[in-house]
């Protein structure tokens, strides 16, 4: 387990054979202490942390230096919600005030990211000014940024200087022939490059930047957009390329594409992957390196736990009127409480897992969970805006993704009623764990072959899931029920927006 320890060269890069055991799904016991220290409160780098800690993005970086076929910066609809779109731009001073206001109101907020809406490193002055201001007034907040990588090699030293210890690079290809179908142009050193030359230049700069960061011990997450028919098979190769350069975590995300977004892919009818296609690709890369599966593809001005967006509470107007009292001690006390909860959760999971020891079964089933956070089954079925999906096997409960069911912008889902939308979103699951559920939806879910379970209300998700799975296996073994395979499910398009 400690094979990949010592140096910050990512996951298992030095070891031969076996799977790297750090990264998103892993817990404290699976990684070197200094790496755990860096990721344990970072919701985007640790699946386990994302149930407890929140992040915020500040939109200080509007300019971009490349064009991607899945992005359209012009489009500006009030209901729009994708990476690259924001409600309002901020100056570094406004951003610093916002960070203090949010961190004082939401003590779970541990991470400040700059992710756009353009590219942070195409706006280096605004980005680093923001980091300078925040590191002075709120030194306990972790800084991170997300970039397309084109300008990255020029800024690695500044990134290190500001102690930004998490950097995300979006890498969709390592082959310019594939890249030219994703990037129409890049702007570099006063020149616009197009075609293969553009993709080649971008790829070289991305990989160079990644190597420079990992050489300095900065954790790197790689984001890749899965575009069926263009780079879906190729992402396995991308995964190998970034792993060999010391990347810590790989996040393969589904393409968000609809005609109303006005993107090239939206207009050409390029589809995104289904839930099963996405999982199959993530599973096939997992043999190489642990995968991030809890990404919510949030906006460049998102605030809150992943899966919620409280940005509407913190508009510039509201922030500027707020009296902010930044109290590190209160925050510390809150985090200590969270850590106690986390330990209890992990202990409960382990205890339950031990009771599975000796059970032999090849069955793997998916279940959906309605949760408001803290790793508990604590959301009513009818109130859930998303369901978290876990894969259950005799190895335990593994988080594999989430399914959105909120009602904003029905892109592609028509005007059908809410329950049908939910059933389609979790139709690959055998059961749904909820805090409470009404009689009608219960009957409808059963008719659709999904078991509605409310007996674990308020309890830990993973422990409950394992208990449910144990019962399921017993019933199958006893002939009480016959195991049936479930179908595919829809991935809902778009990121969260405040309700």
């Amino acid at each position, binding site marked *: 387990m400690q094979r990949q320890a010592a140096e910050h060269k990512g996951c298992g890069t030095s070891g031969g054979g076996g799977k790297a055991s750090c990264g998103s799904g892993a817990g404290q016991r699976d990684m070197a202490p200094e790496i755990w220290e860096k990721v344990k409160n970072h919701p985007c780098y640790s699946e386990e942390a994302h149930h407890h800690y929140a992040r915020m993005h500040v939109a200080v970086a*509007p*300019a*971009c230096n490349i*064009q991607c076929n899945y992005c359209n910066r*012009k489009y500006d609809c009030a209901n729009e919600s994708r990476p690259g779109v924001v409600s309002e731009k901020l100056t570094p001073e406004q951003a610093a005030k916002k960070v203090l206001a949010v961190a004082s109101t939401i003590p779970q907020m541990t991470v400040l990211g700059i992710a756009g809406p*353009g590219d942070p490193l*195409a706006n280096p002055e605004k980005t680093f000014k923001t980091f300078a201001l925040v590191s002075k007034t709120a030194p306990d907040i972790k800084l991170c940024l997300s970039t397309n990588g084109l300008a990255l090699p020029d800024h690695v030293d500044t990134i290190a200087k500001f102690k930004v210890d998490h950097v995300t690079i979006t890498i969709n290809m390592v082959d310019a022939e594939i890249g030219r179908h994703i990037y129409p142009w890049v702007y570099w050193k006063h*020149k*616009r490059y197009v075609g293969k030359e553009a993709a080649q230049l971008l790829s070289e700069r991305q990989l160079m930047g990644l190597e420079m960061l990992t050489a300095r011990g900065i954790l790197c997450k790689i984001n890749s957009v899965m575009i069926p028919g263009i780079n879906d098979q190729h992402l396995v190769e991308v995964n190998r390329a970034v792993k060999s350069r010391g990347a810590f975590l790989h996040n393969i995300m589904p393409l968000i594409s609809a005609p109303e977004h006005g993107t090239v892919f939206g207009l050409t009818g390029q589809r995104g992957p289904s839930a099963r296609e996405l999982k199959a690709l993530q599973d096939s890369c997992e043999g190489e390196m642990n995968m991030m599966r809890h990404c919510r593809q949030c906006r460049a001005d998102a605030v809150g736990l992943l899966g919620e967006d409280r940005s509407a509470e913190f508009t510039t107007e509201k922030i500027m009127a707020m009296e902010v009292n930044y109290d590190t001690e209160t925050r510390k006390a809150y985090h200590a409480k969270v850590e106690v909860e986390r330990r209890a959760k992990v202990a409960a999971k382990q205890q339950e897992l031990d009771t599975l020891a000796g059970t032999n079964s090849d069955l793997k089933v998916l279940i959906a969970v309605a949760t408001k956070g803290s790793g508990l089954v604590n959301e009513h079925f009818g109130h859930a805006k998303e369901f978290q999906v876990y894969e259950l096997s005799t190895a335990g409960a593994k988080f594999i993704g989430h399914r959105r069911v909120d009602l904003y912008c029905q892109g592609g889902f028509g005007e059908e009623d809410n329950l049908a939308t939910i059933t389609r979103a979790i139709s690959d699951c055998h059961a749904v764990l909820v805090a409470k559920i009404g009689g009608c939806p219960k009957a409808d879910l059963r008719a659709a072959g999904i078991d509605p379970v409310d007996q674990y209300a308020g309890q830990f998700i993973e422990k409950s899931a394992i208990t449910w799975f144990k019962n399921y296996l017993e019933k199958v073994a006893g002939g009480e029920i016959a195991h049936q395979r479930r179908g595919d499910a829809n991935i809902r398009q778009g990121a969260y927006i405040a309700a």
Partner: protein
Amino acid sequence: MALKIIASQCSGCSACEPECPNVAIFEKNGTFWINPKKCTECIGHFDTPQCIAVCPVENTCVIDTSQPRYQPAA
């Protein structure tokens, strides 16, 4: 002729502003504008006008035909 930015198409992303070698670009009411008195169409600086090269919205930075053509000093 100088260049101009078609305001209705400008997304206000600010990418052009720092690229202009003549500091001719400024922000007003959320979109960007070119001062035709300062714009040289990048002649003498670069092969192509930088605002056109970096702008994410096609055909938004265009030649303003109402302005006299820029004449570089002989």
